[in-house]
């Protein structure tokens, strides 16, 4: 067979052929295929980002957004000294951490349930994913109405249970005023964020859960491990990389979101439920101080950068191990 045409190394012919062969080289093709996405991101994220950095070091306002005056880090020191900023920073961290904690616990629970098959699972999946199908602004409106200071059904139920209302444990009023108290307000934001992020986080964690071979659980059961021992010694360590991915997705989507707080509490009472993105928006856009708004927005950047890089490295490492 191989006796015929030994020099069988067909090479491309013609100008088009040579061109397409040239384009098909890995190095050329790599840029050809990566290029559009890179250019897009540079144009629509890189450029605005640089502008945001420039803004944060200028004295730009809405009416005069020119970058003609360089003020160094003055905006950063100016915003950092205010109560509002400090509260916003604190709350951003509390809300993100609180949401992550709740989401991770619930997502682990949900994934533990969803890994099994049961009757009505399809329906359950649809109900479970409902919150994720909503735009954030509508999520905020639904919860705003759900927790309304006058008409909240939660309050009504609590009153019926004698937990709320005159002479009850939780005070003399018929309402808890979820959105009007510092810690209840923050808790409400956390619960709402949890509500909307749980489906996504569960999907991620479940993906990790399904990759754990069943034998590992059987072995543990043979070894006499109980539910909690299995959870903490088998499941969680194996889920670690996926939990980190879930933390990243959830954390980034929560910490950058402003419309939830904007609609739910508007940062009040006082600034006690203020968060950084909304404070930046208020200061920068509503209040007109573009430069200070940019400084507020960018404040978290280096920290998030380090946190994300560490998290991702941890995720990759524990995966390789």
């Amino acid at each position, binding site marked *: 067979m191989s006796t015929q045409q030994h020099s069988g190394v067909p090479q491309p012919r013609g100008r088009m052929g040579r061109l397409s062969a040239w384009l098909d080289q890995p190095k050329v093709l790599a840029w050809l295929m990566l290029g*559009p996405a890179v250019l897009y991101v540079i144009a629509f994220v890189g450029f605005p980002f640089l502008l945001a950095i420039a803004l944060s070091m200028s004295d730009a306002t809405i009416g005069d957004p020119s970058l003609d005056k360089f003020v160094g880090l003055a905006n950063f020191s100016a915003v950092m000294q205010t109560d509002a900023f400090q509260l916003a920073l604190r709350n951003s961290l509390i809300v993100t951490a609180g949401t992550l904690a709740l989401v991770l616990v619930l997502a682990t629970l949900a994934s533990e349930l969803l890994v099994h098959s049961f009757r009505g699972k399809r329906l359950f999946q649809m109900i479970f994913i409902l919150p994720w199908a909503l735009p954030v602004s509508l999520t905020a409106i639904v919860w705003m109405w759900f927790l309304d200071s006058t008409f909240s059904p939660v309050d009504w139920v609590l009153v019926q249970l004698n937990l709320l209302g005159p002479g009850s444990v939780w005070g003399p009023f018929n309402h808890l005023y979820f959105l009007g108290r510092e810690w209840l307000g923050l808790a409400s934001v956390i619960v709402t964020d949890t509500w909307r992020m*749980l489906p996504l986080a569960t999907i991620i964690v479940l993906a990790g859960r399904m990759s754990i071979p069943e034998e590992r659980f059987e072995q543990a059961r043979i070894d006499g491990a109980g539910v909690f021992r299995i959870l903490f010694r088998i499941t969680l360590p194996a889920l670690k990389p996926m939990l980190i991915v879930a933390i990243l997705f959830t954390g980034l989507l929560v910490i950058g979101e402003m419309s939830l707080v904007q609609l739910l509490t508007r940062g009040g009472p006082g600034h006690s439920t203020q968060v950084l993105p909304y404070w930046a928006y208020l200061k920068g856009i509503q209040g007109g101080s573009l430069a200070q708004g940019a400084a507020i927005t960018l404040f978290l950047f280096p920290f998030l950068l380090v946190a994300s890089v560490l998290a991702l490295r941890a995720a990759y490492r524990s995966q390789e191990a």
Partner: protein
Amino acid sequence: MLRKIGFYCGIGFLTLFSIVPLLWALVTVFKRDSDMYSVGTVPFFYNEPPTLDHLIFLFTESNFGLFVQNSAIVGIFVVLITMVLSIPAAFSLARLTGSWGERSGMAIFLVYLIPPSLLFIPMYQIVVWLGVANTIWSLVIVLPTITVPFCTWLLLGFFRSVPRSLDEAAMLDGCGQFTTFYRVLLPQVWPGIGACAVFAFSLSLGNYIYAATFITRSAARTISAGVPTELIRGDVFFWPELMAATLVVAIPLAVVYGLFFNYLVGGFRNAT
């Protein structure tokens, strides 16, 4: 037995958690205003006969139908653009760029560290330069900033999960780099692409700030910005209409996402 009870308790709890605020929304949709603004009655009951007026109002008197249509168009185009940009990019990073491409999976995430609460001003400038201000195309152009990095990252994982020997076999079988990508690798990652599409669609649907500032023409608005603008008038909230809008959006999407649930899980399973 105890396990079983625990299991169904868990299912029950999660079901309630997901659905109760929306059930309350559902009750509200059919309430008459005077009933809704009553205290001292059982809030879950219809103390006055329920009414379809709010639902009818939503579809006939507001631009809600247009919002849905716009959101659908924006979503579809955003998904298309996202796929056109991120599939080749993910392939390139996974297969062509060598080790730095492998590692750049991390860098892709950094894009998300910049919240859009201020980016929208320069973004709007770009939108104006492109001559698409105040049209849904402004969102079609800008929203992929949110979806492209996520999807590239997800797809990168999908491509990585395909054994390299498959590409090598294809090349030895006579395929060039591109044909290998197109004929052999791409078919392996279809489920992942489906998961990414669903994901990109829901991200594009959810964005508020760009949608609210780039488009002021009511007829060109999308659900996320149009519904609050049209149904919250200063100090008057059209609660039943708002709730109706929410449910009308959420339920069909939840059904679709529910059907995609396993694909989505499979997507992330491969991605990391």
